[in-house]
């Protein structure tokens, strides 16, 4: 009888205590996971940098090449085409446009590869769903077998 009454005395509190401890631990794990999953890591800047690096360093993109080799940093204007840019660098959730200007700032060629996101570039500023940036770099471009100084201008849009 004693032991039975002892059981009666402890059965209910023990169940509650076990459940409470499990509940507290589950809530703690859930909060940590929720924070981790919903953490917003800003990768737009590194994505934009990646686009620029691909354009200027990859032989499949804009790099000028001849029978002796490739010349990273020198842009072949003939390679600046919609088809070439699509095969050169495309990624879900990212869009970009490329322009090459001469040293005086006059536009020589501008290409919009018409990625899905590109249509949002004009309305990107002030829109919380997208992040936009513009990157410029000093390049040389080939024209009629001669190299000239110029500027490459890349506008990149990603989802926020």
């Amino acid at each position, binding site marked *: 009888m004693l*032991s039975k009454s*002892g059981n009666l005395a402890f059965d209910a509190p023990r169940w509650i205590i076990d459940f409470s401890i499990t509940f507290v631990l589950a809530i703690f794990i859930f909060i940590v996971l929720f*924070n981790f999953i919903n953490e917003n*890591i800003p990768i737009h*800047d590194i994505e934009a940098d990646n686009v620029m690096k691909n354009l200027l360093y990859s032989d499949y993109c804009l790099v000028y090449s001849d029978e002796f080799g490739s010349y990273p940093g020198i842009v072949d204007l003939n390679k600046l085409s919609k088809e070439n840019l699509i095969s050169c660098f495309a990624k879900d959730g990212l869009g970009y446009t490329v322009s090459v200007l001469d040293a005086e700032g006059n536009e020589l060629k501008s290409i919009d590869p018409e990625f899905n996101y590109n249509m949002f570039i004009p309305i990107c500023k002030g829109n919380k769903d997208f992040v936009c940036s513009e*990157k410029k*770099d*000093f390049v040389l471009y080939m024209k009629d077998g001669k190299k000239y100084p110029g500027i490459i201008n890349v506008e990149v849009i990603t989802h926020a």
Partner: protein
Amino acid sequence: MLNKKGDIGYIIYLVPGLILLTIVIIVFSIIFFVVGFANSHTPQVTPGASYVSNIKLFNLLRSDISYKEKNINVADYIMIVDINPVEKDDFLKNFSPLLEKLPKPNLYSSSWIFEVRKNNIIMISAGDNSVSESKYLEQEINIPSESGDILNVRLFLKCYCTNEELGGIA
């Protein structure tokens, strides 16, 4: 009797167990939430401006500029100045407009500085050195001269810039 012993054991281990659990939860809460919040302002991804290659300086050195009614590249012109320092003023006159063409942040005081050092002594310096702000986007190339010395060529941006402003200059 067994049940009773078990119950007593449960009470004995419950209190220290709960204390230990509370300590673990508090410590991990501090690690996840307090330290996490404190670090929330530091960027988790390195800004693009930190990934600097030498391509800008390399392009500058292979750009053509005018020398005695013909075009030669900047690297060759530096060799000429190295051999004949009298050519330095002409070099600066022809090279400075090209340096001005490099994209820079739209700030009233920012300037690209181009320096060539020989034996750690500045041989050529182009750009507006009156801008006394910090150096950014520094690029460096060593080129051998005809005299056998190594010429250290540096290019950097002097400005009071934020990472966002520098991000636009690839």
